[in-house]
């Protein structure tokens, strides 16, 4: 009886998990399917009709390509800055004692400010200060958005750096800088890579803030949104599909080695 109950509850748990995963992944997968459909109307293609012609047509869409270049550049700069700043914020967090929680919440707060409000607020402030909307203003907005996530990722990875490692390094003659370079940095390198990729993807896909802050050259999500409203050409599905595939590839690059390492042996 116990066993039957076990199987039943396990079945229920798996069913719920599967349903959850379907709800999460079906829409982007549907979009991916649509992008291979030769028809002008969105819909899933028949297996025989699969085509990559919309992907090939992408190179001709100068507006989309320019937006993509702009987005990639913004994401790159945002990711570099967010990773560096988050690293400093996380190191500060490690040094603080009583005010640790206050610092944690301060860095995290921008994550909970709705994008519409933050975008609007920033654009108002920039306008007031006489700063023209440009790539830099978008980067500013995206930094606020990506920083808390990068901070959490790096903070998590810092937990492997035990106080005793740093004490032992000091004991053996290492000053603060050497302790950081020889002990902390190698131990949190995977965290830094994850934080970078996280920040990059968050920036690449961000719409609301970019909508308010972009200058003459819009970012890709903003352009895609505009095209949707103007009556979609199937190329935007191809663009979405391409971004989705690249994102999945990035995540696989981050998570893959970690998964493999776990399988290789019970390393600590």
């Amino acid at each position: 009886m116990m066993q039957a109950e076990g199987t039943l509850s396990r079945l229920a748990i798996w069913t719920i998990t599967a349903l959850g995963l379907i709800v999460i992944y079906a829409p982007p997968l549907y979009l991916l399917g649509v992008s291979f459909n030769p028809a002008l109307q969105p819909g899933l293609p028949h297996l025989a009709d699969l085509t990559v012609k919309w992907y090939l047509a992408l190179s001709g869409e100068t507006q989309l390509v320019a937006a993509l270049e702009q987005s990639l550049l913004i994401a790159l700069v945002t990711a570099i800055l967010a990773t560096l700043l988050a690293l400093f914020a996380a190191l500060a967090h490690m040094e603080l004692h009583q005010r640790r929680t206050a610092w944690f919440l301060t860095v995290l707060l921008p994550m909970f400010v709705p994008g519409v409000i933050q975008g609007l607020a920033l654009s108002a402030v920039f306008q007031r200060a006489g700063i023209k909307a440009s790539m830099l203003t978008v980067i500013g907005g995206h930094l606020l958005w990506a920083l808390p996530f990068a901070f959490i990722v790096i903070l998590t990875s810092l937990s492997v750096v035990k106080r005793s490692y740093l004490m032992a390094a000091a004991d053996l003659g290492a000053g603060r800088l050497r302790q950081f370079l020889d002990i902390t940095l190698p131990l949190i390198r995977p965290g830094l890579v994850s934080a970078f990729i996280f920040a990059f993807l968050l920036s690449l896909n961000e719409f609301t803030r970019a909508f308010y802050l972009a200058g003459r050259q819009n970012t890709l999500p903003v352009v895609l949104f505009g095209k949707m409203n103007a009556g979609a050409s199937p190329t935007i599905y191809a663009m979405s599909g391409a971004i989705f595939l690249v994102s999945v590839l990035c995540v696989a690059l981050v998570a893959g080695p970690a998964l493999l390492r776990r399988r290789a042996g019970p390393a600590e």
Partner: protein
Amino acid sequence: MAISIQIETVTRAFGPVRAVDDVSLEIRAGEFFTLLGSSGCGKSTLLKLIGGFDAPTGGRIAFDGRDMAGIPANRRPVNTVFQSLGLFPHMTVAENVGYGLRLKGLRGAALSARIDSALEMVELGGFGPRDVNLLSGGQRQRVALARALVMEPGILLLDEPLTGLDERLRQQMRDEFGRLHKRTGATFILVTHNQDEALSLSDRMAVMHRGRLEQIDAPARFFEAPANAFVARFVGIDTLLTHQGVIREGDATHALIAGEKVPVRIGGPAEPAESVVALRPDRLLLHPHSEIELKNALALRLKVVETRYRGLHHDVTLAFADGQRVVVSLEADQPVPAPGDLVSVGLKPGGAMLISNAGLPAAA
């Protein structure tokens, strides 16, 4: 190369808590010194102050007379084997051991020769390329030891390095410490709460209690003349008896316990009113035949309360007329007295000591 340490009225307060309280101590160059004390008494805190990982809130620490205030851990001639070891998980055994020397600028063949000889010293020859995360507990301890020893420090601090090892490994490592102390000639400070380690290794040791050093002496002195009741208990002299008075007759001193005159040796400058009699279990002899004539003046007449078989011997619990108890062991092949019997107990010289009652719970 060995360095002497002067600790002068050092205090380390964490808010209202004084983890180290007005400690003064001089450790000689090349000495093997042990800090003994129960959990939370401030041993690690004192060690961190010496190593430079923490600064005293009062007092002064000097090495060979040179004040160490303001000199950080990485510039002190001290190396430490931490309680938590702190082996670098992203480095191999050899990289761990060689880390300190690399910082000093050593490279290539000279570096690997030093690493190899340090590993040989702790009997881990050939372990250099291994992953430190995959070593056994005892091997990890020895890597930590090699990592500190390879620096050829003037002072080596060992914070409970044997805790968590099994008994066999403990003994093996303990002997290794003694061997390495002789070989390196450095000043060793060992922190432990295990007295076996302390007794067998130390030139001198200190018993610490609530941030203070209760006694600083050679190991044997803790048994011959414990400074007070706390120290006596700590080293295993469990029988502490209250007395009704102290009688001095010429050279001899007797304490009056429930009508019995017990010859005692004065352990220290203790006020009679604030003293107790400590009985050393190894200096009590039980004569199971009550008919033996008490021609010996050093004998007590006590009543048997209970006996317990302990394998190699019997524990016989005896009581004075006022109910205070003493446990005496009796060889297993001896006849066992019955509860209620009156027996005489011989007291060898130095078996009873009059010591300060400091450190006894108030109820006792």
